């Protein structure tokens, strides 16, 4: 239809040139868009530029001469768009890690399907599949498949459908190695028997199982790293699909996403002082670390925990000069961000200086706390990262820790035997006083006891984050 109109007006070679130039422009828009996403002032426009690039890429592909089945194309494009739109509008900000996880998975799935479809198409033609194509198809199936089930597994853990603790079982490593060997063997078979459709499906199935297996042993606290890695993989999967089709556009866009995901991964790993290998294969917080847990638990066995009620907490906060709020995953779970904002507002009205201290891996994805506080209208100028706030903790009168644990554990700095030793922490123990809002004395996701809770200057305020912060707000109001 449109196709015949366009190719009727323009000679084919012209059309091919125009399509390539349009793709070049789209790639440029992606690059500029991502660049602008890196600065608060331009981020929103950057996102739109990238979206325009995507629209151009889709539009020019629809005009391609090989696209003829317009009814089905328009229908599927519309279905996907509507689902995406509804999901994006409805999702709560607290559920953003799950949302990003799901979207990653769908991108990976689409890339794997494209690779599979192309391989199937060629075998249907009865032509031999070139070795080059077979290799790229295998890469696409592997990366896309792992991205799909890995992301869904991460989603299930975040959503609480599966326990957030590391899941390990006997012979886990041998099983994983077996899967890897099976995949390599299957790939070799596919290269020697080009056109074997069954083996392609077998390889797909293995990749899907591998995705589940990779994410199973990873604990909740390590989720920010996993989400970044999956983000990177979703880009590489798109690149692989681009190699399969010989489409530069896909290769470029995928490589950009792969790079951005890798950078975030590096930032997250650095914030935990762990290597990527250790995060992915260490099963952190399970068997390997129980020894450490027992040791610190005993050491703290005779120590006293000081508990206070909201009224006392409010007195400490209301008469402070400087307060630092340290949010963690507990704030997200309790959806306490609005109550926290209210408390900060009230304190500021009373002349207290309030800042938020944000650890890079607090929460379940990169920037998780920032998103939640932004939702509660906290200006981002009040958010301080590690390097900004740590030198200032000496001058902070009260550090208010809300549902954070491992990121404020002084053992990471002081105890060389602690599994998290070397991880940069928010040094709240250097503040004059610390109030910790926490449900109970249960250890955090890393399964470690926290020396901070036994510190002379630390007061525990036991209860749910939302409830306790609201009570603090009421009590602080009564002070004035």
């Amino acid at each position: 239809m449109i196709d015949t109109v366009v190719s009727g007006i323009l000679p084919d070679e012209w059309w091919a040139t125009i399509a390539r130039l349009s793709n070049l422009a789209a790639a440029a828009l992606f690059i500029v868009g991502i660049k602008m996403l890196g600065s608060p002032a331009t981020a929103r426009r950057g996102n739109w530029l990238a979206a325009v690039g995507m629209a151009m890429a889709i539009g020019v592909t629809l005009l391609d001469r090989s696209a003829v089945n317009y009814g089905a194309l328009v229908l599927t494009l519309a279905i996907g768009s509507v689902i995406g739109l509804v999901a994006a509008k409805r999702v709560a900000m607290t559920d953003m890690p799950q949302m990003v996880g799901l979207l990653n998975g769908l991108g990976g799935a689409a890339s794997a399907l494209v690779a599979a479809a192309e391989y199937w198409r060629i075998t249907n033609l009865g032509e031999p599949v070139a070795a080059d194509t077979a290799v790229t198809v295998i890469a696409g199936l592997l990366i896309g498949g792992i991205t799909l089930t890995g992301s869904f597994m991460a989603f299930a853990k975040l959503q609480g459908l599966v326990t957030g603790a590391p899941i390990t079982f006997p012979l886990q490593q041998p099983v994983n190695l077996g899967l890897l060997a099976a995949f390599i063997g299957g790939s070799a078979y596919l290269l020697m028997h080009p056109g074997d459709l069954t083996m392609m499906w077998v390889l797909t199935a293995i990749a899907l199982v591998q995705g589940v297996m990779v994410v199973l042993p990873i604990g909740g606290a390590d989720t920010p790293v996993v989400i970044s890695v999956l983000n990177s993989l979703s880009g590489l999967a798109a690149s692989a699909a681009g190699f399969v089709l010989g489409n530069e556009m896909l290769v470029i866009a995928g490589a950009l996403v792969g790079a951005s995901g890798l950078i975030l991964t590096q930032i997250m790993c650095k914030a935990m002082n762990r290597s990527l290998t250790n995060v992915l294969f260490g099963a952190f917080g399970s068997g390997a670390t129980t020894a450490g847990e027992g040791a610190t638990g005993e050491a703290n066995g005779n120590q006293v925990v000081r508990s206070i009620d909201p009224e006392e907490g409010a007195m400490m906060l209301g008469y402070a000069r400087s307060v630092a709020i340290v949010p963690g995953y507990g704030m997200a779970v309790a959806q306490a961000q609005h109550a926290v904002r209210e408390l900060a507002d009230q304190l500021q009205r009373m002349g207290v200086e309030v800042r938020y201290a944000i650890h890079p891996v607090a929460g379940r994805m990169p920037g998780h706390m920032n998103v939640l506080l932004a939702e509660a209208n906290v200006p981002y100028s009040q958010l301080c990262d590690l390097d900004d706030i740590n030198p200032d903790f000496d001058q902070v009168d009260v550090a208010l820790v809300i549902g954070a644990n491992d990121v404020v554990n002084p053992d990471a700095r002081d105890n060389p035997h602690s599994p998290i030793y070397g991880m940069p922490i928010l040094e709240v123990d250097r503040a004059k006083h610390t109030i910790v809002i926490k449900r109970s004395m249960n250890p955090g996701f890393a399964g470690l006891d926290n020396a901070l809770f036994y510190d002379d200057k630390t007061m525990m305020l036991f209860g749910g984050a939302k409830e306790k912060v609201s009570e603090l707000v009421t009590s602080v109001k009564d002070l004035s």
Partner: protein
Amino acid sequence: MSETLVTGLVVFVLASFVGFEIINKVPPTLHTPLMSGANAISGIAVVGAILAGGAAHLNGPTILGLVAIVLAMVNVVGGFWVTDRMLQMFKK
């Protein structure tokens, strides 16, 4: 290796370097939006899906392509939209 594959590798490596260069020093506030925005871009697989799903005959490969279009479009539209929703909230 074929010419196409080599060209692809050249483009891939150069684009990766570009990616590393432009995303250098992203403030923590933007970590999530950067991730979800980049994620939406990875939905570019939709282009491959259209090529696979747009063929005249409705057979196995075409159906895979059409399914891929739906999944990729959820990723694209959902990704860009949710990123915009987040960025809308960030203010000075």
